[in-house]
């Protein structure tokens, strides 16, 4: 019996000062562009990276793991909620869709 394949993850959080969505990169920094995040394909590593992120409480708030898939330019969200977090609200041109 083979184990179900692990759905790749990225670590997401909100920036402490600005409050917007940020993602953890492979070099331990935080990016406002999910494509630049580290795509984690192994469950144990994901847990490790999450623990690291939670320890970054003076930079970010509320770190959590998000399902993602490899895209042309890097990790992409698979769920609509996380997709909205990469863009901003749909009723005004505010947030990441106009800031990046």
């Amino acid at each position, binding site marked *: 019996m083979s184990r179900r394949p692990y759905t790749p993850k990225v670590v997401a959080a909100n920036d402490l000062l600005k409050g917007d969505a940020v993602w953890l990169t492979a070099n331990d920094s935080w990016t406002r562009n999910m494509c630049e995040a580290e795509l984690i394909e192994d469950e144990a590593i994901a847990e490790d990276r999450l623990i690291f992120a939670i320890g970054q409480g003076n930079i970010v*708030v509320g770190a959590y793991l998000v399902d993602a898939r490899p895209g042309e330019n890097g990790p992409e969200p698979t769920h609509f909620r996380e997709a909205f977090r990469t863009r901003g609200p749909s009723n005004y041109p505010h947030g990441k869709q106009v800031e990046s």
Partner: protein
Amino acid sequence: MYHYNDFDEAFVRERVAQFRGQVERRIDGSLTEDEFKPLRLMNGLYLQLHAYMLRVAIPYGTLNSRQMRQLAMIADRWDKGYGHFTTRQNIQYNWPELKDVPDMLEALADVEMHAIQTSGNTIRNVTADHFAGAAADEIADPRPIAELIRQWSTDHPEFQFLPRKFKIAVTGSPNDRAVTKAHDIGLRMVRNDAGEPGFEVVVGGGLGRTPMIGQVIREFVPQSDLLPYLEAIVNVYNLLGRRDNKYKARIKITVAENGMDTIREKVEAQFERLKSDFGGFDQELLARIEHSFVAPDFRTAGLEKFNSARASNPAFRAWTDTNLSEHRHDEHAIVTVSIKAHGATPGDATSEQMRVLADLAERLGYDEIRISHEQNVILPHVHKSDLPEVYATLRDHGLATANVGLISDIIACPGMDYCALATARSIPIAQEIATRFDELKLEHEIGQLKIKISGCINACGHHHVGHIGILGLDRAGVENYQITLGGDGTETAAIGERAGPGFSAEEIVPAIERLIDAYLAHREGPEEAFLQTYRRLGMAPFKAALYPEKEQSRAA
């Protein structure tokens, strides 16, 4: 208008100063998020999908022009030039940065406003009929009582850690515009046989996961006993309410699990103990508060201007037909300013619109403004001869939409465009419905209809009491919208009934259209509103319209 006394002023300033220190300590790393989060929530600061959100209380929905201008200033200076009015008579700023929030709170304190107890398991902003002090059908202005409750509940040491949040609404009219039966406590002003003022007290209403219509706990509590009686209810809830399961923690569940008779008995016993403690001080306070709410000196100026404008300007006439309500003074009208232009975000007002409304209130509205739980802005006292000018000014600023009470006057919560708890978006659905029915030019033919949309089961958009309710859910990673029918938030309150399986974001507007077609086909005439047709015919014809495939397969 109530003005802060020295005590209120000192208290609010002190809280701002404390929070300023807390924010500094959070930013410099001396406070962790676990330590800071309860502190920021005590001051109305949430963290949402794209940013922080500051929720500011507008007690009983009342503002003056100075306060409205300050709200506009705050929107411009520290946010993105607009604010969102909510179903609990709050205003939310969607984009503040953490370091700026103490300054925003300071600016609010400058106009006697704050964000205290707009979150947490406390007694939240006390809401009231948005026509309070103006409505023709009113027994008395409910706002002095609401202000008394605000003072009693603010920072009440015993009620800072209730089992769950606690919401109180007050109405002074038999026609309930404050959804009192969907609150933890709903107060309806009544008079007893001797003509003395008092309240019918309703307990255990609420929407959310387990929607319930409140039940009467006591038919008449004399005004002089109200505060100890309320304290007794909250005491009993504080002890009996469940803390082991947050989904069972609201008083509606406490009432359901213990039975109203038990709750009533305990409340009465506690009330007897408490009554003497209050010793009349609350009544002295109330008398002082009442002075702040004396009605303006309504002027008389004749109605010729109003009548001739109505005769000559059809657009003005249409607006007066939908957006005015009967005032207690016959030369005046209550103006509901729709901030639901077709395709706009329900409840959002730009800083410019806020300033226009402030100017109008100051010049032509006795300096009074109200915010309704239906996310509109009210000018409660306008002399009818000033209405043509009010209308023209509103029109110049996109504020003259003649749709109050109609299909495009939709309540929508922020949903997944902002809210971290959301399971789907609500704003775009509201925008699409409003735009579609505007294109069809059917709005006025359809008549009175309340659509209410929530982006999750928490029901901030009051979908359960919408004539048509829409609840956005996440079904296997796709936005899905469930329809309920027959809800009612007034004195004849009812929870809507689920129509059947949900619809995708693409299907929901056509589904609403089919629903409306069915209503138009089945109604007895234009005077029979959607809700009445639903009550007469029940779910069947609407279900058939929503799910035509099923009907066909059954017929085959």
